C-alpha cells in the first residue's frame, strides 16, 4: 500500500505533472503541424497557452455568471408556482 501511496502523494503528483507538461512543450518545438490550420499553430507552445488560458477563462466566466445572474436557490421554480 505504501508503494501505491507515494504515487498519490500531492507533491509527487505536482512534480510529475510539471515534468510531463514541460516534456510535451519541448516535443512541440520539434514536432510542428505539417498542415497548420491557422498561422498561430506554427508557434511552439501555442496549444499549451490556449489550453491554460481557455480553462482559466471558462472557469472564471462560468462561475462569475453563476454567482451573479444565473444561480438561484434550488426551490426557485417551486416558489414561482406558488405565487
Amino acid at each position, binding site marked *: 500500500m505504501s508503494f501505491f501511496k507515494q504515487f498519490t502523494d500531492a507533491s509527487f503528483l505536482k512534480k510529475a505533472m510539471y515534468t510531463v507538461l514541460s516534456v510535451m512543450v519541448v516535443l512541440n518545438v520539434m514536432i510542428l503541424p505539417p498542415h497548420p490550420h491557422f498561422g498561430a499553430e506554427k508557434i511552439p507552445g501555442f496549444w499549451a497557452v490556449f489550453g*491554460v488560458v481557455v480553462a482559466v477563462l*471558462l472557469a*472564471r466566466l462560468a462561475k462569475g455568471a*453563476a454567482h451573479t445572474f444565473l444561480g438561484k436557490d434550488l426551490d426557485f421554480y417551486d416558489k414561482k408556482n406558488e405565487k
Partner: protein
Amino acid sequence: MTAFIHPAILFAGCALIVLFLPVRIGRWFPPIAASLAVYCVVTMPEGSFATLNYLGMTLNLGRVDALSLVFAHVFAIQAVIGFIFAFHITDRAQHVAALMYITGAFGSVFAADYPTLFIFWELMSVSSTFLVWLRRAPASTKAGFRYFLFHTLGGLMLLAGLLLRFKATGSWAFDAVSPASAQFYDYLIMIGFCVNAAVIPLHAWLPDAYPEATVTGAVFMSAFTTKTAVYVLLRGFSGFEILGVMGTLMTLYGVFYATIENDTRRILAYHIVSQVGYMVAGIGIGTAMTVNGACAHAYAHILYKGLLFMSAGTLLYAAGTSKLTELGGLFQRLPLVCLWYMIAAVSISGVPLFSGFISKTITIAGAAEAHHPWLAIGMEIAAVGTFLSVGIKLPYFAFFSKQDPGMKLAPIPLNMHIAMGISGFLCFFIGIYPQFLYNLLPNVVEYVPYTPWHVLQSSILLGFTGLGFYIMHKKLKPEAKLNLDFDYIYRLVGRMVVAVARRPIEVIDIWWSEFYRIGGLKGLLKTAAGSAWFDKAAIDGVVDGSAYTVQKIGRIAAMTQTGRLQDYLSTALVVGLTVFALIWFL
C-alpha cells in the same frame, strides 16, 4: 443468406412478450432481442425494403444505405448494453417503455418517407416520457410533463412542415434538401428536428428531464433521441450553413453550463448538448469529411455517453444522490465504477487511444479544411471545456476530493458492471482500431488520426487544461444552486398562454352563469314540472331496468377516467395503434 428484417419488429414483438410474461422471465428477452437486432443489422443488405400502400400513400419503412446502417449498427449495440444494464429491474413498465422507445428509434432511422418517420418519431417521444415518469418521484412527474409538452411542440412543427410540403410538392419522400432551394416548410421540418437534436435555444428540455429520468432510462435516452435527430438532419439538411454556426455555439454552451452544474447527470446532459454540437456543426459544414466526422462522432458518442450515464447512474443507485456536493472520496469504495467512469471521461475528452480522439478530431480538422477556422477554434475551446468539466471536475469531486461522507452504499448488481465493462471495452477498442468505425462511414475516410502531430496536439491541449484546473480548482468547487437556462423563458411563455387563455374563458363563464341564473332556471323549473307529471304517469315502469344498466356502464367508464395524463397517453397510444392496424387490415 441475407434478408431484411426490420429491427423495430424485434423490439416491438419483445415488448409484447414482456408485457404478458412474468417479469422474472420476461426480462431475459430484451437483451436477446437486441442481440438479434445486432445480427440483423450486421447482415443487412443495402436497398429499399418493406414498401407498403397505406391510405393511398406509398410508405417505405426500410431504406437501408451506408448512412442508415452506421446509426442502426450503434443503436443495436447500445440496445444490448442498455438492456444488460437494466436487467435487474423488476418494473415491467420500464422494460416495455424502453423497448417501444427503441422501436421508434429504429423505425425513424429506416424510414424513407415523412409519414412513417412522423409516426415512429412520436412513438419515441411518448415512450421516452414514460422513462422519465417511471422514476415515480414528484420532480420526475413535473419534468416529464415539461419534456412531453416540448416534444409535442417539436412534433407539431414537423407535422406542419411535412403537410405543407406535401401540399406544395405532392411528395411524402424524405430526401436531402438543397440549401439554395429550401422553402418555409423545409425550415419548419428542420426546426422540428432541431428540437430533438437539442439545438440551442430549443435544448432546455434535455438538461431538465434527463437528470430526473430513471437510472436506466437516462442511459437509453442519452443514446437515441438526439442521435436520431442527428441522423435525420444528416439525411435532410446537410450543408445548411446555419447549422454549422449553431452546432459550434452548442459545443460552447454545453460546456459553459457543465462547468457550473452540481448534479452529475445534469453535467452529463449539458455535455450531450455540447457533443451533439460537434455533429450538428459537421452536418452544417456539409463536406464529405465533416459528414463522416458527424457519423463517426455519433457512433463513438453513443457508446461513451452511455457509459458516462451508466456510471453516474450507478453512483446514484448506490449512494442515493447524484449531487457533487453530497458525494466525494468514493474511489476507495467504488473503484470499479470509478474505472468505468474514467474510461468514458477520457473517451469524451478525446484522449489518444480512446474513441473520442478518433472521431472528434475529424470534424474539427474538416471544419478547418473547409475554411471555417472560427468554427474549428470554437470546437477546440469546447474540447478544453469538456475535459475540464467531465474529465477532471466531476471525477475529482465525486471520487477523489475530500473525505468520504460515509453514506451507506447499496450493493451494485453484477449486470450493471457487465454492461459497463462491454461499453468500456468498445470505447478503447474503437480508439486503438479506428478502421473498425471508419469502414462503416458513408464517405471514404482519408483522415489519419494517429500522426505524431495529432497525438501531441491533443496531449498538450488536455495536459494544459489539467494545469488550468489545478490553478482554478478552489473556484470550481460545486455549489448546490439552480442555474437558469432557456427553460425559464419556456415557463414564462407557458404562463402567458395560460393567462391569455383564462381571460376569455373567465368572461364567458361569468356571462353564462348570469344568463343561466336569470333565464335558464325559471324555464327549467316550468319544464321540470311538466316532465315530472309525464314521468309519473307514463315512463316509470318502463325505464327502471335500463337505468341500472346505464349506472353500471357509467361506473366502468368512470374507472378509466383516472385524471392522470400517463394513463390517457398510454390508452391513446394503444387505441391509435389499433385503429392504424384495423385500417391496414380492412
